[in-house]
Structure formats: C-alpha cells, structure tokens
C-alpha cells in the first residue's frame, strides 16, 4: 500500500508562490484532507501529487517510486502514477452514457469485456446508480452525476484516490448524506484518500488527519480532534470550529501565577498548566465558545448582546465592557437581548498565543482578574 512523501515541494507561477516548501507524509489507507481558505494552495498541491501540475522544486514519492524530482528531471505522467482523480465539476463526458463513461478507462487498459461489465455492475450497484446505465450525464441530477464520477474514478482500482472539493456543488442535505457514503467508501475500497475542501466541518468529520494550509504554507498536520483541541497557531485556531474561537488580545504581563492580560478595560488572568518558556509582548488568549459556560449565579457578569437559537444549540454573544465573547449553550434555550447573565470559563481549556508569530505557547485556565 502506498505511502506518499512530499519533500520541499514548491510551486511558483511567475513571482507568485502558490505552494511554499511543503513537506508531507501520507501513510497508506489514510484519509487525508487538505484544508484551507481559497487560494491557499490545496488544489495545486493535490494536482501536483496526481501529476496534473508540475512543481517548480521538490520531490514526490508514491510507494517508494520517485514520481517527481526537480533536481533529477524526473516527471512521471499522471497515467503512469496509478492514481484516481475526482474533479470538482465531475468532468463527465457529455456525449457518452453512464456505462460508457465508467467503462472508457477500462477499455483503454485492455480489460476483457467480461471483466469490464462485471466491474461496471459492481460499482453501479455499490453506488446505487444501476438504473442509469444508459442515460447521459445531462439527464441526471447533481448527486447522481457525482456518483457516476466516483464510479468512473474507482473503476480501474487506483491505489490512491484524489478528490477536489467533490461535494461543493451539492445542496446541504445531500452533502451530509454523501459525506457518510464517502467515509464508508474509504473503508470498503481499502485505498488511500486525499481530499481537498475549504469546509472545516467536512474535514473534521471525514479525515484521519488534516493538513491545513494558508498562503501556500503548511500550518498544522494532525488528526482532527487534536487539531481542534490543540491548534498549533492562531490561524488554525480561528479556522477550525464553528462558531469560531474567542480571541482576547492585549498586552501581557508576567505575574507569579502566570500571565495577566489587559484588554478592552478588562483584566484577564491566565494560569498555564505547562511550563511557559517565552513571555510574549503582545499576547492572544483563545477559548472556544463551548467552554464559556452560562451559569445562573456565582460567575462573572455580562450582558446578552444577541441570541441565535437553532434548536440543537443556541449561540449567544456576550458583552463585557468593550470585550465581546461568544458562547454556545446546548439545548433549546433562548435569551432576552440585553438581559444580565453570569458566566464561567471551563478550566484548562484556554490557549495562550504569541501575537507576533501566531504560535501557541501554552494551555491553561482563564479567569477574570478581580
């Protein structure tokens, strides 16, 4: 089973650097997601591994074969890399039926007709598109087209499957259904999946590890829950989670307990649970909305700025002097605007970041300074 190794892979378009010295290691049978905002280089990276784009520098290996090496001048064409690619717009051939679309690649590999028919049957059954075999792509719905595209990609049994935002063209409900289908597909086909998306929820729910990128650079590469609970820097902390993490920014001062942060006229005390080596000048403390607990009494006072109940959870914005905090309360509760509430921070869930570099420095507990 393949292991994909990227070493110092860089892609430049003229002066613009799309991917900057990317080092990545993908183990076999993983479900890796390349995640990030538009323009971060994730699709470019995907296409480089597949061979549809040529890196400017670096080295790519798939399963101990060097498929690209800038210094050696090696560049194996995509059809020889034994990979599958699912395009964002499916790229189904409009003048061929579903059956012809799926079978085309296999015919080209000179599979015997019997085997081709068997494989088409197997796939269309698995993806529930059996009854559409003689239809043309324009006669199918978006979801059906998508499944035909998946079938076509899986037909030649590629060792790695690349997917470029395949769910972005589907409506919200269908997207959720297809996510679980894809996760099951990963298990049944026993392949390595590399997936590109800008939707952090998709990345969280599907992947074994997420590779989050910004402006061509790797920001963090970790399993979803680890990335959620222990983001490596401000960008990752902000990108993951919905609603986003609360950030309190200000000048930091060392105290005997830990750090004191002054922000918007409010003083916060941060007590690190691990050793804090460096002391930042400007610091940011982050705490997730679900760790801002609304309690009836015995906490810090705040006013409700807005309340958005969704049935499953209610998102509340609290105003504390000049500071705004977001809190999430589970269950169907609603709060009156401008009402007074009191809140507490869950211990050991705050993270201290250095504003300059953006790096996470330590984890700890947050309290309001009296």
């Amino acid at each position, binding site marked *: 089973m393949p292991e994909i190794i990227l070493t110092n892979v860089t892609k430049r378009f003229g002066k613009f650097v799309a991917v900057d010295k990317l080092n990545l290691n993908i183990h076999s049978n993983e479900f890796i997601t390349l995640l990030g905002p538009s323009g971060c280089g994730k699709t470019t990276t995907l296409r480089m591994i597949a061979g549809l784009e040529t890196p400017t520098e670096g080295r790519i290996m798939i399963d101990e074969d060097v498929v690209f090496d800038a210094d*050696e001048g090696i560049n194996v064409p995509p059809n020889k890399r034994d*990979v599958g*690619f699912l395009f964002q*717009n499916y790229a*189904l*051939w409009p003048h061929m039926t579903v059956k012809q679309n799926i079978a085309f690649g296999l015919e080209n590999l000179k599979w015997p007709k019997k085997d081709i028919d068997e494989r088409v049957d197997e796939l269309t059954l698995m993806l529930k598109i059996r009854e559409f075999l003689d239809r043309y792509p324009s006669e199918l719905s978006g979801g059906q087209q998508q499944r035909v595209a998946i079938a076509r990609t899986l037909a030649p049994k590629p060792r790695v499957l690349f997917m470029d935002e395949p769910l972005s063209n589907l409506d919200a409900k269908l997207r959720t259904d297809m996510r679980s289908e894809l996760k099951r597909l990963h298990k049944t086909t026993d392949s390595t999946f590399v997936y590109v998306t800008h939707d952090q929820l998709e990345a969280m729910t599907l992947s074994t590890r997420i590779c989050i990128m910004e402006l061509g650079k790797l920001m963090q590469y970790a399993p979803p829950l680890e990335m959620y609970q222990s983001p490596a820097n401000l960008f990752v902390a902000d990108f993951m989670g919905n609603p986003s993490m609360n950030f309190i920014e200000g000048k930091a001062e060392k105290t005997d307990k830990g750090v004191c942060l002054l922000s918007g006229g409010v003083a916060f005390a941060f007590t690190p649970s691990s050793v804090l080596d460096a002391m930042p000048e400007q610091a940011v403390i982050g705490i997730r909305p679900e760790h801002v607990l609304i309690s009836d009494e015995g906490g810090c006072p705040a006013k409700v700025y807005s309340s958005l109940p969704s049935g499953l959870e209610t998102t509340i914005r609290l105003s504390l002097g000049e500071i705004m905090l977001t809190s999430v309360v589970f269950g169907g509760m609603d709060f009156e605007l401008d009402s007074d509430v009191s809140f507490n921070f869950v211990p050991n869930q705050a993270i201290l970041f250095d504003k300059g570099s953006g790096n996470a420095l330590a984890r700890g507990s947050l309290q309001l300074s009296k």
Partner: protein
Amino acid sequence: METIQRNQVKRLGRMTHTFLSKPANLILVVFLVLLTFLTLYPLLVLIFETFTVHSGREARAVGLPRGSYTDYHFKRLLFTLDDGGAMGVTYSNSWIQFYGPLLNTLSVAFTSSAVAILFGGTVAWFITRSNLKYKKFISGVFVFPYIMPSWTLALFWQSFFKNEFIGTGTSNGILASVFGIFMPEWFVYGYFPISIVLGLHYAPFAYILIGGILRNMDANLEEAATVLKTSRMRLLRRITLPIIKPAALSTFLLVFASSISAYSVPVFLGSPVRYYMLSTKMKSLMDTYPGQAYIIAAVMIMFGIVILGINQKVTGSRKSYTTVTGKSSQVSLVDLRKWNRPVAVFLVILMLLIAVLPLITFAAESVIIKAGNYSLSNMTLDFWIGTNLTYLDQGDSTGILLSGKVWKALFYSLALAATCAVVAGTCGMLVGYAVAKKRGTRMANAVNSLAFFPYLMPSLAFGAIYLAMSVRVSWLNGFVLLALIGSVKYLPFASRSGLNAMLQLSGEIEEAGQIVGIPWWKRMTRIIFPIQKSSLLSGYLLPLVSCMRELSLFVLLVPTSNTLLTTMLMQYSEKGWAQFGSAINLLIIIVVLLINYLVNKLTGASIDKGIGG
C-alpha cells in the same frame, strides 16, 4: 567532474523528453518552426526582391544585369515626384503609381469599414435586442454577401447600373435598358461603389462579432439603467455602445485590413475609370516593373502588421471568451411597435437586393444573346447547354455545363478547396488546442500571432511572394503550391475557431481522460472532437467556402487561366464574354451556397462559428 556533466546532460535530456511528450508543447514547437518558415521567410524573400533587378523591361530601365542589387525601385516608386512634363502638366511617377493609389486605398478602407460596422452592427442590434419581424429570413440571408465572392456584388453593381455614357461605355445594364435610368459615373465606378460593395461584403463580419456580444449581454445591465429612468437613446449611447466597443474595434481592424488587400472589387469597379488602388496597381506593375510591385506588396503587409499589433494591444489583455454556461439570463427585447413592419420590410427588401437580385441578374445576363436586350426573344440557354455555337464570334463552342474544360476546372477547384480545408482545418484545430492548453506562455502567444498573420497579408502580395519563392524551390509548383498557399492563408480563421472551441471546453474534461491513461490521439478523437464538433468543423467550413471563391490569392500562381473556375471567370470577363462569364459566376455561387448549406445541415458547422461569433 565528468559525472556532474553527464548528470546535467541526462537531466536536460529527461526534461526535454518530458517537455516534448506533452502534445501541446510538441504542437507549439512544430508550428512555431513551420509558421515562421511559411510567413516570415517569404517576407524576407519579398524584401530581398525589392532590392533586386528583374529581367525584361526593368533590367533595361535600371541599366543593370538581372539579379544585381539596386535601390532604383524605391527611388522610382516613392521619391519620383517630378518626371518632367508636357504641355504644362507635371508628371509624377510616384504619385501615379503609389501615392495616388495609396490615398484611394486608405479612403476606401475607412469608408468600407464604417459601412460594414454601421450596417452589420445595426442589423445585429435589431436581430438580437428587438422584436423585429422576419428575423429568421434576415439572419439566414445576411451571411450570403460573405459567402458569395466579393466580385459578385461588384459585377452585379456593374451589370445593373452601367450605361453607354460612362466608363468604357459599351452597353447598357439592366437599369438603363429596362427602366431608362442612367446613373452618373461617380455612382457606378470608383470610390463610392467600391466602398459600398466592400462594406456590404464584410458587413456579415460585423454582424457576427457584434451580434455575438449583444446576444450574450446580460439584460440586467440595460434594465438597471431603465429603472433609473434612462432614455432609450441615452441607454444606447452610454451603455450598449461601450459594451460592444471591443467587438466593433476588432471588426473595424479586420475589415480595414481586408479592404486594403481587396483586389477583385477594385478591378471591376475601379479600373474602367482608372481609379487605382494599391492592389490593382501592384498587379499591373507585376508584369512590367516587378521590383516596384514588390514594394507595394511590402507596404500592404506593413499595414497588416500594424493593424495586428493594434488589435493585439486592444483585445489581448482583456480577452473575454464567453463560455456557454447554460444559465441564460432573461433577455428583454425592445418593442419596435409601429416601426417594426417598416424596418423589417426595408431590411428584407435590402437583403433580397443584395443577396438574391445579383443571382437573378447573372442568370439574366447568361441567357441573352445581344447585350442590353432583355426581351424573351433575345434569350437562349445556349450558353449553358448549347453545342456547336459557331454563330457566336466569341467564347467557346459549347455551353458551360457541357464544356469539358469547365468541368475540369470545377473538379480542380473542388479538390483544391477540399485539400485546403482539410489541411487548414486540422492545423487550426491543433493550434487551437495547443494555444488553449498553454495560454499565457510566450510560445503560445507567438504561435497565436503567427497563425493569424497570414490573414493580414494581402492575398495578391502573398501570391507574389510565393511566386518568388517557387522560383527557388523546385517542387513548389502546380497543385502543391496552390494548396500550400491556400492552407496558410486560411489557417488564421481555422485556428481562431479552433481556439474558441477549445477555450469553451473545461480542461478537466481532458484531464479525466489523461488520468486513466487515454492516449492523446484518442482523447482528441473520442472526447474533445465529438463534444465540440460543430465549432471545430466550422474551422473546416470557412476555408472550404473561401477557397472555392478565391481569386486574388491564386491568380498569380495558376499555370493557366483555365485551371480554376474563378480564374476562368476573370479571363472571360476580361475578354468581354459577358454571357459565359455570368454563367460561370452563377455556377460558382450555386456550388458555394450548396456546400455551405450541406455542411451546415449535416454537421451543424456554420460560418458564424467559423468567424468566431
């Protein structure tokens, strides 16, 4: 050290191999070399010829042996402003042979471009943005003036309006003999009719290009202004016109370049009254003082280069290729109300005059025995199907449909047109594919410009250069020479329609095939071509139709005047065999219209898509 060198070589070898294994790169490299040779080398030959002495009258005039270097041609053509005179009249060779025709050419080019844009653009607006009646007929017939040879309208104009008081004054045309109306000379020959006829011939360009933009224009743009209570006139001036400006400019440049190199129309409508343009001057100088003829050719090509440069600058950076998205926004049509019927009827009549009346005229001309007499007693089908026509003291002894040499010319013309179409069309598709795939790179831009260049070279000048080249290269003659020049000349449109077709296709369609290992040729034939069939085939149709009706490109290169139908026609016209000439003219037009119709019906290809609408 040696190992490092060897590794470097190996690396270079591998990189070159990877580079050339991508079909797009290979195509670009091949065409870069090929086009440079076929367009730039002839240019060099031409420039060389402007400094060389040719045999015959020229050698005697210069006083130097053939083949020697001289700047005589330049001096004589461009700088001889006073040749002395007689009876108080100053005679200037340069003015007569060059500057006069140059002035005529420029004024005709400007006027015809204006006519084309005004006429074509206006009709385009009516068809795409209003609820005009009879749209189908008007838009269907509108392309005719372009499909028919340009001299069709010229000959029609002449046959219709000529009379014995003007020009060479030999006979009366239809208007004079049937209606007794005698038009003045300035109306029938010279600047006015040449500009009108060329403008009408190229109006379909404007119609297709401007209509293309208008058709895809989002109605919301105009609606937003309407909601803000903008008057219709203001809307047209401040919103619609600025939007079509790029297409209008492009059309202007194309028509301008085409008008400069037009030959057949000035020959029929200018020469009888000695109104010369650069093209007709060049042809006449070719026989006597080739050196000066080549200079004129060079000047015409220079115009083409400048125009190409301007066009690239204006459109190059902001290329907007309207991709068919399938989501067509609502297009609200302007209600013409009481103007609808009058305008529609006017346009229908106009189209009938331009497209159908010429055919009737030629038919009439081809069946009358004595010129000017359009009574039934004077009519005969002899010129078509007669045999043993010895009572005529002109022409052949058989009607054209029974004449062996006419059929021979027809088949030769068809074979030539088919060859040019296949070569130009295929090359155009390949170039379009490669340029689309590698767009933005220097090589793609170079090939794209080079591929368009032949269009801007005046056909006659192009022919002159290839003639000069054929003297040097032994195998370059006959059918091969004609097919080569025809293919190169029509490559521009083929590559433009190829490029447009490829740009409409998302790259992922091909990549999906690449990933599963479909080889390049299979991707082209089984995926790309079938999807964009009608656009790509249009790249074949335009050369096919254009070659069938092409005169000026081939006139210098044919072995005899009887080789092609068009050269045959010119020969007959020059000899004054009006009836045979008209019959052959009608034959050519019918063949061309038939081909266009058949290809359109069978494949969906059309001239529209060929020009880039």
